[in-house]
Each structure stands twice: as C-alpha cells, then as structure tokens.
C-alpha cells in the first residue's frame, strides 16, 4: 500500500523545518480560503523579477501521453506550501512531499489507485489539501487527496503514513454516498476545502454522457474520522431521479469569520439539452453560500437560468470588500465561463451593482424551452462581448476559400445564450470559457482584481437520437451522448479545414480591474498560441487554463498559456517582465511563498489537451539570486 522511499531512513534530517512566523505560506489551493491567490511576498517586484533563476526542477515520473496502455495525464495541481514542505498530488494519485529549497523528495505516498479514466478523458489531479489539527503526534497535521474512483486519502504531513483513525485506515470511500442515478463514481479531482476540522468535498462526473446522473452535492467530512457531518444538495429532491449533477467540481472559498462556505455549482444533466429538467432548479449554475456548520443554504444566486451551454460555475468566488456609498460591504466576485464577473454581497447574495435581466434567444430544439431572460452584470466590463462574437478571421477565411464566412451565415448565433440547435449554433464564449477554473487573483491592498480569459468559439450541434453515432470525445470537443435525451451533441472548435480558428485573434487576455471604481485598468493579450511548433504573434494572445498568483511586490505570476511558458507580469501595466519555458502548459495556479527567508514561486507544468496535446510531470521553482 505504501511506497515510502529510502530517504525516510534519515528521519531526523528529513523532518520538515517548521515554517517561521515570518514565512508567507500557500497552504490551500487558492493561496487563501478567500480564494484571493494573493501572496504578501514583496521581493518579487517589476524591477527584480528579471533576475529570477530556476532554483530547482524535478520530474515526478507520473506521466502518460495516451500512446501506451495508460490514458494521458492532465495535471493541474497547485503546489501547497505548508509545514515547511511542498506537497503535490500527481495524476497517478501519489502524494509527494518535497524540500522547498532543493526539490528533493522527502516522502511519497502511493494510493495504488487504478489508473483508469473512469469519468474523465484522462488521468486528472488538481492536488492536495493540508490540515493542521493543532495537536501533536502522528496525523496531527494531515494531507488529503482524492482519486478518480471516489476515495479520499489522509496521510500524516510529516511522514506520509496513512492516518489510521480516518475512515478505513486512512481511506474513505466517498462513493458510499452516491445513491441516486449512480452511473459513475464521485471523482475527487479537486482537493477538499478545509475550515476548522471539516473537509468540504465536491466531485466531478460525466454530465455530458447521461440525462439521469448523480445529483450534485457537497459533503462535509470530519477531518479526523472521515464521518459525514452533513450533505448539501443542489437539485430539488422531487426531480433528482430524472436529471442530475449541478455538482461542485471546482474549488470553494470560505468566509471564516461568518462560517460561510461559497460553492460554485455547475449545470444540470445533460449539458446541452434540458427538456428533462424544465422544472426550476434555482441552485444549478449558481454561486451558493452554505453554513459551514450545518450545510444549510444561506443564499444562492443563479448565474445562468436553465443552463444548456455547459456554463458551469467553475471557480471559487474571491472574497473581497467593496466600498459603496461610504460603506464597506463584505462581497465576493464570481468569475464565469460566459465572461461576466458578478459582485455579490456575501452575507445576502444580493448583487451590489445592478444586474439586468435581458431577453435572450429561444430554442428550436425538440422538447426544449430555453429561459426567456438571463442575468447580465453591468458593473465590470465582461471579459468577452455578450452581444457579438469576434469577426471572421480573414486569413482563415481566405485559406478555406470562404468556409468560415459561409459557416457564420449557416449557423445560429444571436448573442450570448443562443441555444444549441440541430442546424448548429456558434457558442461564444465556448464551454472552455471565458474564464476558467483558475478564477482571478485579488490584491486586497490596492483592491485590484486580475483574471485571465480565453476568446474561443465553438460549434454546438444537436444530433437527433436516430442519427447519433458516438465517436468519442475529449478535451471539450467531440461527441456527447446525452443518453436518454432526444439528441446527442457534436461539439467542435470552430475551425477551417486547415485547423485555423475561424474567429479573429486575440485568443486570450489578462485583465486588471480596479474594484474601487469598477473600471478596467488594462487588458492585454496574454501568452502565445503555438501550432505545429510555430509561435503566433504575441498580439494574438492565447487561450488559457489556470489562474494567476498576485504578489504584494506588484507582480503577477501565471502559466496558463498554450506556449508552455510561465510568466511574470507587471500588475500596474500588464506588460510581460519575465518568462521561462517549461515542459508543458502550466495549467495550475502557481504557489508563492517564503521558505527559510527565501521567496519562491513554484509552478507545476502538467499540460491540458484543451490547450494542446502536450503532457508534463515537471515541478519547477524560481527564486531571486
């Protein structure tokens, strides 16, 4: 069960050096439970980051490109720095503890999980969670990691030894609570969010595959014992048997003062047709606040009515304070795939600034009834235009002898929320966003919010059941069966025959908002598109996955781009200050911390096929000389 390495023998030397009081930690997925992705580290400044050097780089060996017997790895684990060590989970479901100064492995724990893509197109992992009980002794500090087959493991943070008092010898079968439409396991890809002594767990599934699927919930688990404390569900009980999901697959945030857990709830099943779920599901595709002690819903704000676009709420909301009319309002900012940023009162869920209900296009699909209106935020400029998709790209149109223009005429597009159709609908933003699960980063001192976004158009084509042939899917493209619905779905990026995007660049941006005024400070094309090895011009930007880390020194660190580079960006101007090439797109949010008086930024370069078919197993740390 356990594969601990020989280095464990030198125990005295290897026991972690306790983090000093001055050390800046990154002890949770989003840096802080408020999901700010903010580090108080000040040494990384626009003047200094040009001198960044690689401190160390390791390869975990947990890598597969899908060409052999193993599915490809899709690794998005934000490294955790806590207890004087770096902790990462791998897509082979191993936990590694690393020396932050050298990258040397201190211990590893192998869950021995079957490496099978039970619910996802590849082997996915987004990392681990750290918990300090305040007690001494074995498992006084713990690392938690979930697996695709619905097991949650707890190990001692100092040694990697399983915590015997947690569930079944350190392993909790979370699938025991999968009791309705259990057509797939609760895949635990996102590490739990932890507050006090409770783990909050969401899960991922296959909401594109079935109409009737497990209804989404959040499970509160005792961090010591693995006992279920409470469960919160997001689909009304009476309709759970005929639909499903509205699950929480992304990270969550916590207002520790108010004991509020904020959860991004995804869309119901199936993703692209909702005739089986015309009854109101007010908590689907919402941001919802739960009482951390009871699981009771304190409030819920629906971001998409009757979601038939797979516009899952996909990132933890960031907790902020907003000044309005001379008052400080406890608020949150919720990023979305559809490009809008909602600012809500986090005590009540009420929008702090006007949100308009606007009429949107009707559906012409059999049995479907799209919502007549959708909520449009009016305060912060969206990252993606809600009224118009990017124009047809002249070069792609020329190369395809007008195919792109003909497509534009043929397919439906009537602004954001044009329903999927048999004719084919151009969806903008695409199901990959807009903004992705990395969410945004927030500088609480200067009240600036930074977020990366993609500009991508996809084709949604409903295929009548009699004509549907499943040819597989992956990387947010392909055939989606929607079993028991009258339609399957073909989802494709809108490309010409040569594989060129039919829409004009830029393909991605990094934006900065001033939350004192609601104004956009800057928006710059971010990253570079790379195809067949060729780098496109910087002004084209890149689609991005993975979020930014913001530092007190005025620098933003971010990977996320298609060109496998990690970058430092000037927070004041959006200009690139530094970059380095890594093994694959660094689609995890980096961690920024101080260890033994030295500041580090650590990236995981794991790749994601949504960006390009390149995988990685690299953890790389940078520091100043």
């Amino acid at each position: 069960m356990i594969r601990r390495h020989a280095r464990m023998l030198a125990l005295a030397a290897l026991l972690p050096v306790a983090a000093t009081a001055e050390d800046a930690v990154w002890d949770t997925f989003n840096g802080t439970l408020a999901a700010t992705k903010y580090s108080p580290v000040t040494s990384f400044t626009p003047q200094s980051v040009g001198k960044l050097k690689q401190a160390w780089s390791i390869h975990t060996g947990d890598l597969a490109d899908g060409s052999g017997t193993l599915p490809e790895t899709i690794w998005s684990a934000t490294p955790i720095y806590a207890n004087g060590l770096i902790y990462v989970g791998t897509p082979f479901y191993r936990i590694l503890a690393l020396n932050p100064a050298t990258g040397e492995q201190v211990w590893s724990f192998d869950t021995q999980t079957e490496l099978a893509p039970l619910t996802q197109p590849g082997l996915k992992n987004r990392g681990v969670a750290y918990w300090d009980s305040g007690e001494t002794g074995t498992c006084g500090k713990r690392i938690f990691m979930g697996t695709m087959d619905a097991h949650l493991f707890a190990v001692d943070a100092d040694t990697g030894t399983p915590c015997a008092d947690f569930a079944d010898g350190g392993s909790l079968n979370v699938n025991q609570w999968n009791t309705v439409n259990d057509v797939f396991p609760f895949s635990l890809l996102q590490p739990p969010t932890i507050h006090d002594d409770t783990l909050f767990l969401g899960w991922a599934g296959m909401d594109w595959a079935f109409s009737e699927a497990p209804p989404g919930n959040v499970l509160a688990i005792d961090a010591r014992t693995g006992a279920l404390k409470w469960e919160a569900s997001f689909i009304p009980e009476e309709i759970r048997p005929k639909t499903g999901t509205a699950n929480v697959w992304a990270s969550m945030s916590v207002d520790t003062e108010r004991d509020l857990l904020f959860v991004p709830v995804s869309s119901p099943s199936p993703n692209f047709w909702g005739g089986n779920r015309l009854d109101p599901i007010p908590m689907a595709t919402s941001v919802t606040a739960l009482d951390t002690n009871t699981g009771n819903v304190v409030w819920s704000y629906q971001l998409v009515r009757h979601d038939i676009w797979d516009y899952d709420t996909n990132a933890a909301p960031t907790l902020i304070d907003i000044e309005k009319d001379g008052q400080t309002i406890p608020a949150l900012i919720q990023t979305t795939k559809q490009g809008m940023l909602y600012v809500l009162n986090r005590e009540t869920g009420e929008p702090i600034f006007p949100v308009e209900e606007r009429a949107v296009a009707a559906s012409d699909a059999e049995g479907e009834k799209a919502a007549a209106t959708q909520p449009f935020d009016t305060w912060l400029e969206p990252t993606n235009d809600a009224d118009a998709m990017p124009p047809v790209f002249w070069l792609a149109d020329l190369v395809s002898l007008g195919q792109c223009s003909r497509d534009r005429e043929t397919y439906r597009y009537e602004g954001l929320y044009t329903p999927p159709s048999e004719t084919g609908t151009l969806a903008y933003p695409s199901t990959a966003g807009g903004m992705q699960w990395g969410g945004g980063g927030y500088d609480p001192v200067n009240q600036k919010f930074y977020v990366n976004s993609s500009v991508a158009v996809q084709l949604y084509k409903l295929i009548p059941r009699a004509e549907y042939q499943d040819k597989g899917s992956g990387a947010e493209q392909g055939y989606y069966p929607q079993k028991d619905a009258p339609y399957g779905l073909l989802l494709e990026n809108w490309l010409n025959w040569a594989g060129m995007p039919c829409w004009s660049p830029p393909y991605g941006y990094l934006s900065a908002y001033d939350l004192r005024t609601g104004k956009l400070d800057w928006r710059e094309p971010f990253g570079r598109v790379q195809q067949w090895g060729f780098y496109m011009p910087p002004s084209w930007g890149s689609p991005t996955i993975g979020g930014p880390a913001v530092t007190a020194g005025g620098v933003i660190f971010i990977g996320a781009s298609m060109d496998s580079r990690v970058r430092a960006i000037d927070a004041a101007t959006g200009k690139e200050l530094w970059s380095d090439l890594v093994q694959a797109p660094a689609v995890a949010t980096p961690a920024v911390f101080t260890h033994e008086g030295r500041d580090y930024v650590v990236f995981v370069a794991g790749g994601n096929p949504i960006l390009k078919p390149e995988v990685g197993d690299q953890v790389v740390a940078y520091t100043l000389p």
Partner: protein
Amino acid sequence: MRMAFLLVAICGALACGIVLWAYFTPMTGITGTAGAALAAFGGGMVALGALLKAAAPGPGGFAALLSVLLFLGILGTGAAAYFLMQFVALGLMGVALLAWVAGVSRVARLDRGAIA
C-alpha cells in the same frame, strides 16, 4: 560565385543542424513538432540546392530554376525559423540570402560578359 553558394550551403546545413537539435532535445519549445521538422528539412534542402548550384554554376534553365528554388527555400526556412523562435537559424538564413544575392549577381555579370 562558387564561394557564395558554398556559404549558402554552410548556412543551410547549420540551420538544419540547429533546428534538428531543437527537434530532438527535450523542452526546447519545439521538441518533436512538425514545424521544426519542416524547418530542418528546409535548411537541408537549401544546403543541398546550394551545393548543386556551386557544382554546376553555368547558365541555363536548370541553373535558373535552382536559383529561384534556392531563394524560396531561404525565405521559407527563414520564415519557419522566425515562427519557431529559432533566431540563430533565422540569422543564418539572413546570411544565406545575402550570399545568394552575391552569387546570383555574379552569375548575371558572367552571363552578360558571355553575351558581349
């Protein structure tokens, strides 16, 4: 003239080698990519064409065709190197272009001399 085309051949071979190195070395950003293979092929063809040109410098349709192909090869390989961010290879193609211009000018002068 022969020296000019020999210089083109050296530049092509060096560019080919540089891009091949990037193709086979891990984590160069273009490892194993079709674009790198194409640029390496282009560099190799420039080298081969320039050697042929140096070996058969005389006037005639084939020599003219070779000159044009060589020119296109230098431009294409240079463009590929630019988009692959292989700037040394790009520089080599710049040198190759200058050498090609020198070589072709010399051929033209010789041709004019022969006609006169």
